[in-house]
């Protein structure tokens, strides 16, 4: 059997894990509820505020200060608010959703059954793609809901909403990749999803601090912040212009963490 088929088989199993198990269904229900609240109370009302004549000047000043004035020009304000919220919430959600790619299977010994039928690299890649597919589906669904909401408000913006959805899907998809790959790496040596999340919190919480102190002490740029997934998000947020680094940084980070995950997995005892 080809390696590719085994990877597809492993990735498909991840989808089943989310969509066909009780735990997965509960996670989905929680996700849907959270996004319903976000869309109903934040996106919908914020879009109305941003477009209202009374608040337009204030919104311009506020968005301008934050470097987000380009977003006000979008014909579908719901999409602008969606983008602001999802650019940070989806990476966090991706970390949670992908926190148990291999660790509980390793602790339980299930990985031993799998490793007699698929190589460790295939397991890492298969599980990674499984998580990527899950997050991609969820991004797609939330974009669909946002477009639907915008179209419900004004049916003429259906096409602009659709076009913006496609572009945002691409942006968000690339944004979440290094987060999932980073979790693949953490999972290659940690034995519980809870511990994986703690390690992530420490990494994202203390990482910038440590890098800052290091750079302050040596008095030079170390470029170590490129190790932090999401380092480019703040630059992407304003959507002023599309630059190569918005895509190259997350893609390189993804490749880097997947290689690390693969190497660690190959060296670890099952």
């Amino acid at each position: 059997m080809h390696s590719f088929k085994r990877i597809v088989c492993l990735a498909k199993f991840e989808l089943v894990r989310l969509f066909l198990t009780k735990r997965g269904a509960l996670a989905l229900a929680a996700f849907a509820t959270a996004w319903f609240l976000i869309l109903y109370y934040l996106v919908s009302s914020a879009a109305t505020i941003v477009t209202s004549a009374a608040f337009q000047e204030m919104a311009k000043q506020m968005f301008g200060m934050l470097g987000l004035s380009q977003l006000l020009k979008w014909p579908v304000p719901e999409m602008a608010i969606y983008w602001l919220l999802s650019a940070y919430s989806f990476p966090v959600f991706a970390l949670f959703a992908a926190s148990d790619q291999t660790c509980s299977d390793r602790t339980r010994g299930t990985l031993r059954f799998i490793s007699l039928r698929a190589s460790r690299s295939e397991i890492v890649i298969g599980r990674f793609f499984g998580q990527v597919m899950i997050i991609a589906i969820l991004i797609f669904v939330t974009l669909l809901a946002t477009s639907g909401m915008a179209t419900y408000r004004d049916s003429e913006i259906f096409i602009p909403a659709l076009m913006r959805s496609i572009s945002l899907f691409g942006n968000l998809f690339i944004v979440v990749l290094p987060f999932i790959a980073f979790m693949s790496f953490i999972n290659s040596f940690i034995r519980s999803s809870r511990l994986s999340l703690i390690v992530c919190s420490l990494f994202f919480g203390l990482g910038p601090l440590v890098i800052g102190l290091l750079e302050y002490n040596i008095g030079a740029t170390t470029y170590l912040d490129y190790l932090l997934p999401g380092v480019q998000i703040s630059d992407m947020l304003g959507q002023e212009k599309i630059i190569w680094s918005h895509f190259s940084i997350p893609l390189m980070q993804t490749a880097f963490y997947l290689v690390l995950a693969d190497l660690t997995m190959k060296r670890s005892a099952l």
Partner: protein
Amino acid sequence: MSVLIRAQGLNKYFGQKHALNNVDFEIEKGAPVALVGPNGAGKTTLFSILCGYIKPSSGEVSVFDVRPGSSATFSRLAALPQDAQLDPRFSIAHQLKFYAQLQGLNNKQSQYEAERTLELVGLRDVLNEKPQALSHGMRKRVTIAQALIGSPEIVMLDEATAGLDPRHAREVREVVAKLSEQTTFILSSHDLSELERLCQQVLYLENGQLKQHQTLQQDESINFYTLRMERKETGFIEILSSLTPVVDVVNSQDKEYIISVINDEQQPPFDVQLLQLCHQHHWRYRQLINGKTLENQLF
């Protein structure tokens, strides 16, 4: 005979502990092989190396002439690792089908394979149950079923019958005996009588060293009989020793005797003589074994 597994100068260290010490052996295709040894002898470590779960610290090991864990061994080598469990969130059918699909079977074939292997371990009815709904013994048999998916050439079972009731342990032994024509089983167990029934070759590990690597065949010139009596009989050893072909009688353990006999074609069969002697003296025997028990050979 083709060599399936080859190990040369195999060493494994866990910190200061020398878990495997310069182990050499070869396993050929054929009858089941027993892996025996006391707790902590290195049996599970050896299993783990052969399955590719851990790497040896030094030495050479190959399965089907390739490194353990490489893709050439997929679908050809299967195992029941000690304490490994199925995922509690999915049904047995779902998981067995997934493993079968990883081995290259399509949806229909994998469904058939899940049903076939569960049938082999007497658990066809639990196909749609989740592992949590099963008893410990049933879960163990399901994990044995996963090792039989796709009829692999080597199946390694680490303590397969530990925790099973006698009836189901017997069923597992029957499965091993039935499939051992096309599959080479490597069995680790503390139940020596079980291994004796099934295996022709024994790997005996002690303190990480391979103490014996032998086939359970007898010396051509001397035959051994193991006789278990119901009670101790006065003058038993003396009377038995007076029989012409008897070379030695050893009281191996309580009410158990190992009798060494010269193999002489001219004499009437010794087991017949022995049973006649028991009948004459009204000795009640419990069991007569042609040969030494595995326990007596090893310890």
